[in-house]
């Protein structure tokens, strides 16, 4: 009799404990979002604007109609990829914030390699080469961050952001110089890859295939990070570097590979921006997706699966920016203020984890 209760009790309490802990991971960010919304409402009231109108427009612009949902999805797809660029190194305990740089390099590489091929290459070959070029360029870009971190101990947050500025300079250098398309008098750009070579939309929508690719990559990387030896080793490295070294794990290799995967993801975001949206590389490529991706990853607690809905959520906020700007006469930076506020409050909410009795298991104390 004693045996039965002894074996049965831990199973149920274990399930309850896991449920309660997962509940905490949902409730806390939700509470942080709510608090941000309240503070932002106060901010709007001080400025003499209506918070009700703001959130109504936010809803309508991001999620109200099928049209706005499509806008949201178009913005969500690069956000998923740039969030992965933060989430994967985060599992190794690294704070990489230069995803925008990898996106820029990926997009630039895709557009640049296409130039000599446009005249003769069939679409599938052209796009195939562009995909590979963007993934490699992004991978190398973040790989540099991993390498200087591992071999020289250079802080990855600083180096990744410096590389972002260098990437923008490289883009401008070529777009305004050697690779400038002389037939375009308006904005310095590379030669367009051509309408017939652009990636099409998902049938029945105006959303390009980057969304499906982003979702798939999030799922794949979730399994890689949670269900493979590689992911396990990466998480040990992130948990305790010395322990990982003592176990004989190839820490340097793990750091380099993770950073390269992360950079390749952001580089592919650049590819989709070129091949599905802009059709050519120019300054519009640097649109801030890499920086919003940092917030997406932190909100998702660096979990690739959770990144999918969070990217759609923040994509919606971004999509509603134009509508809010027009209707309420607020600057386009309004969305940036809201995002920054959410970010700060979310980080502060970390301090409250484990403080509330509801999420704790009473039996755990015995």
């Amino acid at each position, binding site marked *: 009799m004693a045996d039965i209760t002894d074996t049965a009790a831990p199973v149920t309490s274990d399930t309850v404990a896991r449920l309660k802990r997962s509940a905490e991971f949902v409730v806390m960010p939700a509470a942080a979002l709510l608090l941000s919304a309240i503070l932002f409402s106060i901010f709007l009231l001080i400025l003499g604007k209506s918070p009700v109108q703001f959130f109504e427009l936010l809803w309508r612009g991001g999620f109200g109609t099928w049209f706005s949902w499509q806008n949201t999805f178009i913005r969500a797809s690069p956000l998923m990829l740039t969030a992965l660029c933060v989430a994967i190194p985060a599992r190794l305990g690294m704070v990489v*914030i230069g995803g925008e740089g990898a996106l820029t390099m990926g997009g630039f590489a895709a557009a640049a390699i296409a130039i000599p091929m446009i005249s003769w290459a069939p679409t599938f070959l052209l796009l195939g080469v562009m995909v590979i070029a963007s993934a490699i360029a992004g991978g190398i870009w973040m790989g540099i961050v991993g390498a*200087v971190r591992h071999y020289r101990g250079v*802080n990855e947050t600083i180096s990744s952001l410096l590389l972002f500025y260098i990437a923008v*300079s490289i883009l401008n250098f070529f777009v305004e110089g050697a690779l400038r398309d002389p037939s375009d008098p308006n904005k310095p750009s590379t030669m367009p890859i051509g309408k017939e070579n652009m990636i099409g939309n998902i049938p029945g929508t105006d959303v390009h295939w980057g969304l499906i690719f982003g979702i798939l990559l999030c799922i794949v990387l979730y399994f890689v990070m949670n269900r493979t030896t590689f992911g396990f080793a990466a998480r040990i490295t992130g948990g305790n570097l010395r322990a990982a070294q003592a176990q004989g794990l190839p820490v340097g290799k793990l750091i380099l590979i993770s950073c390269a995967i992360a950079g390749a993801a952001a580089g592919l975001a650049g590819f989709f921006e070129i091949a599905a949206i802009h059709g050519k590389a120019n300054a519009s490529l640097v649109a801030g997706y890499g920086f919003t991706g940092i917030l997406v990853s932190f909100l998702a607690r660096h979990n690739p699966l959770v990144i999918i809905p969070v990217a759609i959520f923040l994509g919606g906020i971004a999509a509603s920016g134009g509508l809010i700007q027009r209707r309420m006469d607020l600057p386009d930076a309004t969305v940036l203020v809201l995002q920054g506020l959410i970010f700060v409050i979310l980080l502060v909410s*970390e301090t409250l984890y484990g403080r509330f009795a509801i999420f704790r298991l009473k039996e755990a104390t015995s």
Partner: protein
Amino acid sequence: MDDGSLATVLLAMFAGAIRVSTPFLFVSLGECLTEKSGRINLGLEGTLVFGAMSGYALSFHTGSPWIGVLGAGVVGVLFGAIHGYLCKLPKVNDIAIGIALMLFGTGAAFFFGKAYIQPQAARLPSISFGGWSDDSAVQQALEINPLFIIGFFLAVAMWWAFKNTRWGLIVRTTGDSTAAAVALGINVDRVRLIATSVGGFFAGVGGSFLSLSYPGSWSEGLSSGQGLMAVALVIFARWNPLACFEAAILFGAAGALGPALQSVGISQGYHFFNAAPYIMTLGILIVAVSPKRSLKGAPAELSITK
């Protein structure tokens, strides 16, 4: 390149180095103070941009650029205090908070700054040191902003204070060992809060230089990572305020390279020379930092060197 244009480039680089280095100098001194107390504030980039905007706005409304400088500093104190207060909460990561405040500060500056992109605000006057020369280029190069001179004396004063004063000792002890500081009866959180706030003041003043002196107007592309490069600069300067001054001049010269070459008609590769300060920063970090040994002068409680 003949001798004449070489002299022009060198003179332009000298003048440029002084102009471009001033924001680096202030932000790096602020970061130096913050890091000496054991915290890192990556949010100074946001403080710099917000300081630039608010300094410009205040100068426009009051007509006095010096009120703008002071206001930018006060706003910097606010940002620093938020950072210092939030980071003392358990489980809150100072690097992540810094990134969040950087994004928030930049966003808020763009939000409030929309109205000030067009108007012309009163700019900080420069002091002429070139009266002895007949050459107008020399005279122009020696128009030095008073903030640069203040920054130089500030660096010397900080260097002296770290070594010789009770306050300097308290900040250094807090940065080197929390346990030792607590044992001495020092309120560690309060010291870090004050150090981060004062550091924010310096960064705000550095920002006001950008909008009120050089380049001398407010726009959204005003700062391009100077606040962040200053963090790297402090590592390179080994947490020594005097070395911060020298490093800021070096960074300023690198930043002045592109415009100086443009002044003699070499405009090819302009964007490449624009990238020079970033490439140099990265190169310096790679050379200066090593995973095998701890850095001389590094505060032991600092999260990036631990």
